[in-house]
């Protein structure tokens, strides 16, 4: 069996086993394609994303785990390191700092950590980055909160 397939299958089994262990992450594999995954992650507490559930799409390359998976947000999110339109994520471990020791699960954890600790100095979303860089924390929070409510929370009534 192809190395990437074997490894993803192993991760799949691991995810099934650990489902209860990490309530913030729900990873699921496409029924027909083991190279396509989706994840639901909970917005970290004490951030404007709290209470929201964000969907991620993983496209795993054939060379995995020697190459990082491509991850993007399917749920709209206002965050300096996430492209507002495409959902592309600017995170070093998904680019040049990738290591095969990362798993899809731990990538999710890294993305949750990125949500809690934005890096306004390498922005993909300039509006969001500028708010933070100019010190307008309140403005950033209310924008991020608004989009969390609009896009990441179940509609009421």
């Amino acid at each position: 069996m192809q190395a990437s397939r074997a490894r993803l299958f192993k991760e799949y089994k691991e995810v099934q086993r650990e489902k209860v262990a990490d309530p913030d992450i729900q990873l699921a594999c496409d029924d027909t394609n083991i190279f396509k995954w989706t994840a639901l992650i909970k917005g970290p507490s004490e951030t404007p994303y709290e209470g929201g559930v964000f969907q991620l799409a993983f496209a795993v390359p054939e060379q995995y785990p020697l190459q990082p998976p491509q991850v993007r947000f399917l749920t709209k999110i206002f965050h300096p390191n996430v492209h507002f339109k495409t959902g592309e994520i600017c995170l070093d471990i998904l680019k040049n700092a990738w290591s095969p020791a990362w798993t899809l699960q731990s990538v999710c954890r890294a993305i949750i950590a990125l949500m809690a600790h934005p890096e306004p100095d390498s922005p993909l979303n300039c509006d969001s980055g500028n708010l933070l860089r100019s010190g307008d924390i309140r403005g950033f929070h209310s924008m991020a909160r608004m989009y969390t409510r609009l896009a990441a929370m179940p509609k009421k009534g």
Partner: protein
Amino acid sequence: MVKVAAVNVSVDREEQVAEQLDRIESSLSSLNESPELLCAKDLLLRPIQILDEHQPVCIIDLVAQRVASSASFSSSSSLNNSNFNSNSDLFGMFHFVAHVEIVSVLTGIAPQMGLIFKRDLKKFNAIDELKKQAFHVASSSSSSSSANQEDEGLLVGDCSICLQDLSATGIDLIRLPNCSHAFHLKCILSWLKKSDFCPLCRDLCLQKS
């Protein structure tokens, strides 16, 4: 820096191939005359893996198959007989570079145009050195020597590259020299083709600390 030997080949036309092979071979025989450069000859003849999932090939074969548009090899040396110091590291004195450019692609090599392959002998040798340290768990029942037991004690868990069990019998394992992190040999070799870092701690694992 004194240039000791150089081989330069460019293959454009069919009739030139034989001539270029002759040139390489004569360069190789000139390398034979200087014993300290024997390892350089080794580099030209040693099979190298250029792309994943393909059989390793020699530079000289690439030229023969007209896969490489140019293959060059150079070794330069800052060594002077007067200040020869037998204790110093060989790599402090010599620096070898092998360089193959693949432009026209024949069957057997993946269709990637313009791929440039460069590799330092230093990394070559470091990886070779690493391969020599490979070991495997012979059998789970025989844990007679204390060294074996120590090895097995540290081998609990999975290879972090393929996530398969490390202690499976008969599979070559490796422990990286500086950080002692253990992996399957084939897994770490495929990673080290892309990177010089240990996957677990980002230690520069091919350099002696």
